[in-house]
């Protein structure tokens, strides 16, 4: 958090001296509000800094993204901000950029090879733990809960589940009565929760590993007429924030995609100015959003 | 000693017996014809002998040794090969690849077994030249060959297995006269080399030309097996249909031929036919004869709007344009196509639906089918045509060829036809059904309906028609009256080449 504030201060100071920089921004997909917000943050920051930002959408295709990185190298951009579609498939692309002397900044996900100047991501493990801590606290260490996992095998699913389970497993009073996936999808969050509610007359809390599934779960709970089930979501998408305001979602572990995108651009800016980051991994803090702090949060973020 | 002997063969499908106690002995080196009406059980019997079906009961002996075939491969290993009506060749592969499909000669290169292509080509050549079919290029793709050549490749494939018994199901159905002659020459040579041939055909003349013995099946039963020299065609027909049938054609019905109904002027559809003009009168039966490929079949399809053509058509002296079958149907011009499976029937639907398919406009109200009216209409047609079905809900693919053809004919009857174009109306149909279809044609003409019969069976054209047009290479080469028409004269016109 402090590092971030320092960066912003530096950034404002340096804006005046900015040269005309060109930065490539490779986003894995724009199918998801998270990445849209993330890209919007980057665009806004680029405008502030007077950086020309080339936004390229890989539509979740490794091959497309590789080609896009190659194109950016051909265009001799000053830096490449990469939100990789895959942690391994993009290694050669990063290596090519390294060879061409173009610094690479990775966002949200990194790559397992090549030289990455800065890697910025939310701390998903900490977020999972945050959700678990909240549930344990509210249920006073005793209750029956449901886990709705994201897409099996995805890194966000793995990390959030790990953070959550590590903490929950230390509290034997908390029993996970249903552990299912809804693939980060709202419609599946709805139907899976509907079925779970049929099987379990007593449920105290549901942790959904993203807001879409949490929103689906909330719909299911409402239509079943059940009361008093605590729903915890993850990501902090606008609809999730609204659900927190409405009191439907008790806690939303909010990411800050807009700020993450902006930070990516400013990091790129500093790297091109010769600044070195050590350590090169920046963890975007996650924010535990509840009804009490939500209004404040809405004001401060975009 | 007989090379093949079957004893007490029974076969049932879902409890329905289609073959009953069949006993048959086939001698080595004979050409043995199997005849019977459609549905008599010929094909089923052949499929049992060639291992495609297992008999419900009974025994098969090959060279006095009892055999049980559970697949065609078993039969092939015992020297029995079946050549289907629909060939079992892979169209995209070459001739030699097809002949050696599944038994490609191999050679070892390092540790790999690879196809010995040179040997495969050479062996294919020698097999083909044994058949006097050296004109077939072993590197041609099957899809580029003529039907006759495909058949030769199929025979070559069977011989490459060293088959001693060849079973041929209607081998001549799609061949021209000349090709049939060539095929027969080959079969005779195979016979001299000791190959035994089981031969299914509907064309009885052929049987007298080539077979040594003949077996007649009827309703799944073995009626008789005789030396061909000991029977007459009439006797065979009688045994096939189970009743005396002196004539294969019904007695002529007097029908009035009236004014010109249809006038066709200078119609052309390259490359099938060009500048064809003729007239058709009310109640007239007009035969259009010619060899396979002369363009008469395409002419029929074009008149019905299935193929594009240039030129003029006048119906009752008014010019009409037919671009699509719907146009022809509006003018009550109907086609019974040569290939009923691709153009005439929806095989997986039932008799009722096939019958009423083109007639739903008047069998329905507000878009919904009047089921009772439909049933009545279908039943009336089925009864009129004497179509043999178990119910109108029977799928047409389960009907015999003759009954399928009656369904195709029947479709149009409810629409009171003005002109019926019948393209090869009796192809692949048993004698009994043929007779009924001929009667139907007379009956329609008597009712004043004009009929065009497109046929390569000259006897049929001569017997039925009031007037005969002969086509060759897409042109009309002559017109004959039935009194002057003979097979020889038609043939002379049918093979007439372009003068220029």
């Amino acid at each position, binding site marked *: 958090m402090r590092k971030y504030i320092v960066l912003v201060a530096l950034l404002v100071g340096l804006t005046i001296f900015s040269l005309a920089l060109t930065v490539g921004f490779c986003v894995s997909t724009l199918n*998801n509000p998270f990445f849209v917000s993330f890209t919007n943050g980057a665009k806004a920051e680029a405008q502030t800094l007077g950086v020309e930002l080339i936004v390229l959408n890989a539509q979740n295709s490794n091959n497309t993204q590789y080609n896009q990185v190659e194109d950016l190298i051909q265009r001799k951009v000053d830096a490449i901000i990469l939100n990789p579609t895959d942690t391994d498939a993009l290694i050669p692309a990063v290596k090519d950029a390294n060879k061409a002397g173009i610094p690479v900044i990775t966002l949200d996900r990194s790559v397992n090879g090549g030289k990455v100047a800065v890697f910025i991501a939310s701390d998903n493990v900490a977020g999972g733990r945050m959700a678990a801590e909240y549930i344990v606290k509210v249920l006073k260490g005793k209750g029956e809960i449901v886990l709705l996992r994201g897409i099996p095998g995805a890194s966000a699913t793995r990390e959030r589940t790990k953070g959550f389970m590590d903490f929950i497993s230390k509290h034997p009073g908390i029993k996970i009565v249903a552990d299912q996936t809804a693939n980060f999808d*709202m419609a599946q969050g709805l139907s899976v929760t*509907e079925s779970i509610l049929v099987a379990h007359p007593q449920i105290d809390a549901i942790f959904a590993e993203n807001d*879409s599934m949490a929103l689906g779960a909330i719909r299911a709970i409402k239509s079943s007429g059940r009361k008093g089930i605590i729903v915890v979501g993850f990501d902090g998408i*606008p609809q999730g924030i609204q659900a927190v305001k409405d009191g439907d979602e008790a806690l939303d572990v909010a990411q800050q995609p807009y700020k993450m995108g902006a930070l990516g651009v400013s990091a790129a800016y500093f790297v091109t100015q010769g600044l070195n980051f050590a350590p090169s991994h920046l963890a975007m803090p996650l924010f535990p959003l509840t009804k009490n702090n939500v209004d404040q949060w809405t004001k401060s973020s975009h | 000693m007989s090379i093949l002997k079957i004893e007490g063969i029974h076969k049932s499908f879902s409890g329905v017996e289609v073959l009953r106690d069949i006993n048959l002995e086939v001698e080595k080196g004979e050409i043995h014809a199997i005849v019977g009406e459609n549905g008599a059980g010929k094909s089923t019997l052949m499929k049992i002998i060639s291992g495609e079906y297992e008999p419900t009961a009974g025994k098969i002996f090959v060279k006095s040794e009892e055999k049980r075939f559970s697949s065609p491969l078993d039969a092939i290993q015992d020297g029995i090969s079946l050549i289907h009506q629909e060939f079992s060749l892979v169209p995209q592969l070459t001739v030699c690849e097809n002949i050696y499909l599944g038994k490609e000669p191999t050679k070892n290169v390092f540790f790999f077994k690879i196809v010995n292509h040179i040997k495969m080509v050479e062996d294919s050549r020698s097999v083909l030249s044994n058949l006097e079919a050296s004109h077939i290029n072993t590197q041609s793709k099957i899809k580029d060959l003529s039907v006759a050549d495909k058949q030769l490749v199929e025979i070559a494939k069977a011989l490459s297995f060293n088959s001693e018994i060849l079973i041929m199901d209607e081998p001549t159905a799609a061949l021209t006269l000349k090709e049939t002659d060539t095929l027969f020459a080959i079969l005779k040579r195979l016979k001299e080399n000791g190959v035994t041939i089981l031969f299914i055909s509907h064309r009885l003349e052929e049987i007298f030309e080539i077979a040594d013995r003949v077996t007649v099946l009827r309703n799944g039963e073995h009626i008789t097996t005789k030396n061909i020299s000991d029977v007459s065609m009439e006797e065979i027909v009688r045994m096939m249909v189970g009743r005396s049938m002196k004539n294969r054609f019904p007695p002529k019905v007097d029908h009035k031929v009236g004014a010109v109904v249809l006038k066709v002027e200078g119609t052309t559809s390259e490359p099938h036919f060009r500048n064809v003009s003729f007239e058709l009168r009310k109640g007239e039966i007009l035969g259009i004869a010619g060899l396979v490929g002369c363009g008469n079949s395409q002419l029929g399809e074009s008149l019905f709007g299935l193929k594009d053509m240039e030129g003029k058509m006048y119906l009752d002296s008014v010019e009409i344009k037919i671009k699509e079958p719907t146009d022809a149907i509006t003018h009550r011009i109907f086609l019974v196509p040569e290939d009923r499976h691709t153009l005439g*029937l929806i095989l997986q639907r039932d008799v009722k639906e096939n019958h009423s398919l083109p007639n739903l406009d008047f069998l*329905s109200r507000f878009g919904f089918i009047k089921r009772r009216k439909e049933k009545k209409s279908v039943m009336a047609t089925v009864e009129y045509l004497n179509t043999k079905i178990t119910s109108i809900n029977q799928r047409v693919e*389960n009907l015999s060829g003759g009954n399928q053809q009656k369904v195709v004919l029947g479709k149009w009857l409810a629409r009171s036809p003005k002109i019926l174009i019948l393209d090869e109306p009796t192809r692949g149909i048993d004698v009994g059904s043929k007779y009924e279809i001929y009667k139907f044609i007379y009956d329609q003409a008597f009712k004043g309906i004009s009929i065009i019969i497109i046929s390569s069976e000259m006897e049929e054209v001569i017997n039925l028609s009031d007037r005969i047009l002969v086509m060759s290479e897409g042109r009309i080469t002559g017109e004959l009256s039935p009194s002057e028409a003979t097979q020889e004269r038609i043939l002379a016109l049918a093979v007439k080449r372009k003068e220029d």
Partner: protein
Amino acid sequence: MEKMDSSFVRKYGVILGLVGIIAFFAFESPKYFFTFSNFMLISKQSSINALLAIGQMFVILTAGIDLSVGSMIGLSGAIAAGTIVATGNVLIGILAGLGIGAGLGAVNGIIVSLAKVPAFITTLATMSAIAGITLIYTNGQPIWDLPHSFMYFGQGYLLGIPFPVIVMTIVFAVAWIILALSRYGRHVYAVGGNIRASRAAGIKINSVLISVYTISGFLAALAGIVLASRLGTAEPTAGRGYELDSIAAVVLGGTSLFGGEGWIVGTLVGAYIIGILNNGMTIMNISPYYQEVVKGLVILLAVMLTSFGKKYWNE
């Protein structure tokens, strides 16, 4: 012989499968699974796939396939929601959504029939294009904050029955009547059974083809609107992958992928089988990893049984 042929097995085999699966879950979880309220829940959950599958069946009966239905769900939901937000009128929004579905379905049909591009390729291409249009239209963001009157469509009840189930029942009944009793239904079966023979019987092939894709697009749009209403949100990626479930339901129901044969009751049963598997396995808390495997195997088994039965009865 007629009573026992392949179509018999095709027709009733799937019902046997349904009974078997219900029996299994009822035995495993009698208290929760085998209840009336859970039956209603399964019906509600299956309604979207059933709507898609009924449309898909019309297309498959003509020997085609419609891969674009999943994307169509997303677009129609988004257009309906977007129009409602813009005009404040729920009815106009629903009509806009249905209109876009039917219109794009007709485009599919026109490409397949007039340009003669194979259905698989055509709808694969439009599947991608429609998904893209949805993202452009929504800018990748969900559309929410929809009026309560719109929610009734997906969340409401009529006489104690969930409204989506009523929609599904009506669509099913109408489709059944059309396929079994109407002239148009006959034409659909005929074109799928033998397109050339149908043309020779005077059927306007192109109108039949265009209409089945229009029906499929329309029903996908209806499903998309029900889904958006059920969720209270039009998600830009809603419906992705649903095309496969709809095809699975149709095939489970015994409809031939080669066209010309199929019974609509089978399609509904197929949709229920998929819905029951999802519901039952979740109730039993079977690991989601295994659920995928089981679903795949059940579909495979069912189709194998049908074709085995077919072979058996034919021999």
